[in-house]
């Protein structure tokens, strides 16, 4: 086997390997990771976050605009503090509503941002005041049963 043939094959191998990595990066993975330097932080407090986890997506109108970076517990007010990291390209009004939603019946939980009408925009480290907790199935069933019982009583 002479030198040029070996060089050629190794070249083909290396290029194919790089192409495979590129394929994994672009086609399989999402390269547009929200990085620290081109994003800003928002804080939201919830009464109940249900099954929300770190790294869960933050969506507005169904589009991913950021991710949950941290979930803490506020021991004074007994609330959950959720830190969101939002892409710099997107700004939201002060009166934006943050709600915890579920994609599909058994799907993952995410935070949905509903933009309000305020002219002032949220900045880094700002707090979102309007929040809506996760829907807990047990509470929902409880409410349903309670409603049914009341219906029976009025009849």
């Amino acid at each position, binding site marked *: *086997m002479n030198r040029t043939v070996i060089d050629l094959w*190794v070249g083909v191998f290396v290029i194919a390997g790089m192409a*495979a990595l590129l394929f994994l990066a672009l086609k399989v*993975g999402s390269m547009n*990771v929200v990085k620290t330097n081109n994003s800003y932080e928002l804080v939201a407090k919830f009464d109940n976050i249900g099954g929300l986890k770190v790294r869960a*997506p933050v969506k507005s109108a169904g589009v991913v605009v950021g991710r949950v970076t941290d979930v803490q517990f506020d021991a004074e007010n007994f609330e959950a503090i959720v830190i969101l990291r939002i892409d710099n390209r997107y700004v939201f009004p002060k009166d934006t509503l943050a709600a915890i939603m579920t994609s599909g019946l058994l799907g993952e939980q995410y935070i949905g941002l509903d933009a309000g009408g305020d002219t002032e925009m949220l900045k880094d480290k700002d707090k979102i005041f309007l929040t809506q907790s996760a829907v807990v199935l047990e509470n929902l069933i409880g409410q349903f049963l309670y409603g049914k019982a009341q219906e029976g009583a009025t009849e």
Partner: protein
Amino acid sequence: MLKAAIAGVGRRTIQGIWRIGFATRFFLLVLFYSGTAFRRIGLTIREIYFSGVLSLIIILVSGLFVGMVLGLQGYETLQTYGSEEALGVLVSLSLVRELGPVVAALLFASRAGSAITAEIGLMKATEQLSAMEMMAVNPIARVVAPRFWAGVISMPLLAALFSAMGIFGGYLVGVVLIGVDEGSFWSQMQSAVEFEQDIMNGVIKSVVFGIAITAIALFEGYDAPPTAEGVSGATTRTVVTSSLAVLALDFVLTAFMFRGIS
């Protein structure tokens, strides 16, 4: 009788420690003389050909079949929950995080690692290494270091090719054969797989496996008794030790990388 038994334990312990020390010194020497592997890049390219290019066929074919089996089995399980669109996520995450680096490393150990051990062991048995020393050529710089770097370079490329081929196999079975929706197959995959968390960690894993496999293979070859049985025993030990090392390292790396990530 008892004295001899205790002496046997002691001898084995001393031999074991001596071997570990020898392996460490050998590894450090390889790193020390690595300069040759890059100064005379032709030597390394030749070894990339033997351990990387010649492993391509087995890596590509196994990757394709592993991906196809993942597609079939994943579909069977996922469709009972009515979420067969998540097939792309299942196939890609299991390949990129685990199966790609690990299975490619196991194949690499048995395809290239054993060849490296046998080659160096035979070089030693036929006194080629001693002949080099006589000619003032350092066998570690001339023979061992290029093979080491060739393995370290080849391994991540092979793992990436394995993963890419496996995802293609999953796509073939899932989308083309069974008929899962193509758009949701790719888009769910893209939203679930992250470049830094998943793909880069897979690459780091495969680099570590490459270092472990080639270091073990080179050491076993260099340390092999210069006889026919010695070389065959060393080749067997290479495959067994490096496969076990890959699996153990995989557990440790996974525990560090993916702990606390859902």
